[in-house]
């Protein structure tokens, strides 16, 4: 498996550390306990496309969001976590102007 880092280009998976499901978002500190339990423990764990966080520890040390098929390991796209966060913030503003 090879991951194309937006900063460094195509690299061997051994350069990257895996963090997991990228659709999880840490709740606000004032949230109910149930929101934190939901954040920490359950997973959708899909057999198919999966958005996930990888850390390019052997390269630029950037955090990446990789869209990958868990059945075949085929990678559909890679973006930086920074871009995802900016997109999330824009969506939040659009939903709650």
């Amino acid at each position, binding site marked *: *498996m090879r991951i194309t880092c937006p900063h460094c280009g195509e690299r*061997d*998976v*051994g350069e990257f550390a*895996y963090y*997991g*499901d990228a659709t999880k978002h840490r709740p606000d500190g004032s949230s109910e306990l*149930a929101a934190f*339990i939901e954040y*920490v*423990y*359950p*997973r*959708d*764990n899909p*057999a198919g496309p*999966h958005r*996930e966080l990888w850390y390019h520890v052997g390269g630029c040390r950037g955090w990446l969001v990789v869209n*990958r098929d*868990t*059945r*075949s*390991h085929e990678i559909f796209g890679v973006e930086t976590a920074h871009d995802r966060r900016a997109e999330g913030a824009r969506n939040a503003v659009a939903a709650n102007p």
Partner: protein
Amino acid sequence: MRYSAFSILSQALKGNTGWKPVWREPEPKAEYDVVIVGGGGHGLSTAYYLAKNHGLTNVAVVERGYIGSGNIGRNTTIIRSNYGEHGNIPFYEWSLKLWEGLEQDINYNAMVSQRGVLNLYHSDAQRDAAARRGNTMRMHGVDAELLDVEEVRKLVPNLNFDNARFPIYGGLFQPRGGTVRHDAVAWGYARAADTRGVDILQHCEVTGIRVENGHALGVETAKGFIKAKKIGLACAGRSSQVAAMAGLRLPIESHVLQAFVSEGVKPLIDTVITFGAGHFYISQSDKGGLVFGGNIDGYNSYAQRGNLPVIEEVMEEAVAMFPSIGRLRVLRHWGGLMDMSMDGSPIIDKTPIDNLYLNCGWCIGGFKATPASGWCFAHLIAQDASHEAAAAMRLDRFATGRLINESGTGAQPNLH
């Protein structure tokens, strides 16, 4: 037919013409008292103990593939009970006790071999940790011996004791641990369950679980709807997918674990050895092949195959520990799907849905648990109450904070 020395001799005289298939291939009935989803080791042992311990024989095991096609045929065959958490030790020790009597119980040669499991340590701190684990085991009545380097040298003389980075200081030894012929476990339990009336339905994929008003009513399968008074899920590796059919989300990620077999060589390793400076374990099969493995690959996967970085790591650890096997060739390697739970320990519990029971989250250690998993899951299904050995393996422990965090790595499955 009951297997014995006499049956082998009499068959030999008849030219081995009298052997029968060891289980039936029935068509599904319309309704069962219990349907077990998943015909792996745990599902088959559950069905067997439902029949034997609880008198429930109107039971079906539904399996998507064929018996032995999943993780029961993909593991590295090791049995042991050298755990360190209260919620785990009595369970795995009960499992080891069941292994010790299994072959007589199911009248099947599973080649249970108590050749010992040796966990090496490589520093003073690791020796302290090994002593603590060994003492914890002994307080629970489990056998454990702390060996110094000379005792390890007597046991396994060909290890690399003076590795500059990871010298071997000694090991924690569990003499009653060992290996079992894994395929024979599946076949033996299948035969024993079938003999007691359990229907084993192969090539019968479950495509849905019918739930109405919070009650599970049965399973939709490739061979039609099967009504069930109770349904037990024992499909580790795919638990999230199957549980999702009933609307459940589990604290589980599926990961791939690779394993390896070398070409056959003369007797070299007569115990099971784990490397303490990494994650590596090795034993030798009775055919002579070295059977070994290491860490999971570390990312979500349903592919049943892994990638090269873990293979490289495993080979490095193999030759660091056993320089003499450096020229051996790997004969084959493969991957299996692991239900990685969020605290590294399994779940045997009821679900929020009536009549639906859950057995999952076995992480990288499901094989050794096969007998006790079936024993305790059968108890749960039949009695509607947890067996005492599995009482801590609850689904709600993640919300209540009563985790069984054996490795102390938290909710990060690729670190377990």
